[in-house]
């Protein structure tokens, strides 16, 4: 594995997202997957925040990279990304966060818009991510049809590839997309962008069922979950519950310490939720 000067190399186990999801399944519960962007409100606090996620019960961490044009995100994550970029966050800062998550014992996946990977070079990005304890990539604006380079790089490095399926996906697309995934499948439960919603919607369950009909991979549900009750609801039919905007909101308009405390409280509630399937 290539090592990069100044970057925290991780030499521990390389537990993947799939391993954790299997373990959760054996425990008879869903996994809690938490998202936070690196660099918000600043790099140091964001690294502590992903550590707090793991300490408070998140099983798999998605570390986002702030992007200038986040077209899949609602206003909470858009504003966090804008603030992080204004604060000078760099793409390479994500590797500090993944190493921190890994050191806490959870697999870190990086969630990123594709141009940031393309710009660094797909192979270089994959090598650096693997060297920094990363478990893989979630790619909201990259479909497998365009992912030849990434599929080759992830085969070479053993990183997970998480592509998204949506309620609008046809049966053919579901089969094709899931056959390209490794680790788990990300089911975007509602049509729309990220952001907390009052109701998760019946579409999520249907999408999970349709997805499970074509793959044996675990299916995690994202977009809209914001509290323990919703987490329990989604945990009844999904292998993992993904929470993003609601966690980001904990760090919004708060002093770092206060934000981290709020983050811990919400994470514990969500972790309890995924253990109380309804």
């Amino acid at each position, binding site marked *: 594995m290539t090592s990069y000067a100044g970057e925290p190399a991780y030499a521990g186990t390389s537990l993947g997202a799939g391993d954790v999801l299997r373990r959760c399944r054996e425990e008879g519960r869903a996994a809690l997957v938490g998202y936070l962007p690196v660099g918000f409100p600043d790099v140091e606090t964001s690294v502590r925040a992903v550590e707090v996620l793991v300490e408070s019960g998140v099983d798999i961490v998605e570390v986002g990279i702030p*992007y*200038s*044009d*986040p*077209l*899949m995100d*609602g*206003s909470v994550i*858009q504003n966090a990304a*804008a603030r992080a*970029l204004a604060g000078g966050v*760099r*793409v390479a800062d994500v590797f500090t966060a993944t190493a921190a998550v890994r050191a806490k014992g959870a697999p870190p996946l990086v969630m990123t818009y*594709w*141009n*940031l*990977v*393309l*710009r*660094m070079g797909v192979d270089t990005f994959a090598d650096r991510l693997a060297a920094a304890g990363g478990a893989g990539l979630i790619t*909201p*604006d*990259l*479909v497998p*049809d*365009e992912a*030849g380079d990434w599929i080759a790089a992830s085969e070479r490095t053993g990183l997970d590839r998480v*592509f*998204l*399926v*949506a*309620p*609008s*996906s*046809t049966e053919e*697309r579901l089969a094709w*997309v899931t056959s390209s995934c490794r680790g788990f499948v990300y089911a*975007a439960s509602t*049509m*729309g*962008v990220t952001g907390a919603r009052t109701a998760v919607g019946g579409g999520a369950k249907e999408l999970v069922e349709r997805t499970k009909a074509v793959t044996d991979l675990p299916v995690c549900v994202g977009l809209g979950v914001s509290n323990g009750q919703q987490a329990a609801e989604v945990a009844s039919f999904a292998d993992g519950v993904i929470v993003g905007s609601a966690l980001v909101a904990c760090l919004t308009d708060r002093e770092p310490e206060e934000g981290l405390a709020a983050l811990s409280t919400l994470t514990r509630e969500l972790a309890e939720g995924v253990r109380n399937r309804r």
Partner: protein
Amino acid sequence: MTEGRFGDFGGRYVPEALIPALEQLDEARSKAMVDPAFLGELERLHRTYTGRPSIITEVPRFAAYCGGARVILKREDLNHTGSHKINNVLAQALLTQRMGKTRVIAETGAGQHGVATATAAALLGLECRIYMGRVDTERQALNVARMKMLGAEVVPVSHGSATLKDAINEALRDWVTNVENTHYLIGTVTGPHPFPEMVRDFHRIIGVEARAQVLDLTGRLPDAVIACVGGGSNAMGIFHRFIDDPGVRLIGVEAGGSGIESGRHAARFASAEPGVLHGTFSYLMQDEDGQTIESHSISAGLDYPSVGPEHSFLRDSGRAEYLYATDEQAMRAFELLCKTEGIIPALESAHALAGAMMVGTDLGPEALLLVNLSGRGDKDVHTAAEWFGLLDEEAGS
């Protein structure tokens, strides 16, 4: 995968949620383009509503500033709504109906595409929402009023730089959410496949008409076809029919803003490297990390950090050449066309005119230049008046 690619450029870098809609659109437009009923209806609308064919005008007094070359303008400025935009908009609005959708959304920078979309929506009874950067709604207040008059809802976008690229982000977010009943009527030859190819095909009529008109008038093909390039729809429209004419140079003119060295420009080919923005892989103004860099131009319609992928292909393959004109050069050409020919061009088109001045000076009096006058300058009178200091203190607020 080669479908939807121009060499390495193009593709479909979008969320999975949009893929089915893109496939539906691809199928609908493929069927429509060979369906006499669709083509007949579009032809009828162009004849009775748009005002096609648009004329060509020879401009000898302006040509004196182009090295004495013979200069002919293709007059897309005379179309209904004042620019070439209506060609694409009417066709996509008809497609929207054929797909059984009832609502269109669009992005707009200067407001030309927004006005054209609102117009087509009014004509065909479609619900219409236009996304426009807040900065642009302020500098183009008249076009905002025009869109509202036509029955469209105009949504100012305050995120990011609050200009065209952010309006596109917001339109894409709307589309992901409402794709079932909504068509995203993209206004230029960019975005995910099939948009670049489809929008080019809907504008191809510009070059088809112009080629025949120039042959008819002069008995020969032009030495160069010149057009401004923002996203690049008017340029692809006039270039495409000439691609297989090896003696005809295709010359795109980008916005040089305050000059390349200033960093405040939209001359992608002069400075940028390929990357992905808004669903397509093309030349892109981006920083070392791949974050989009904001572009700058006096012309809102050219003020975009990326460019249609087919232009990137034509550029790298050498079939087309790309120059840039600074704000200053474009405003000089703007003023000259007004004063020598009595035609007020759009600021975008003024860049093509500035390109003609450079190319004509280079080629000399034997040359024949065809320039796409993509739009008229009514919308730009305020900006131009400010530039030339024609507004006095009291009236100029």
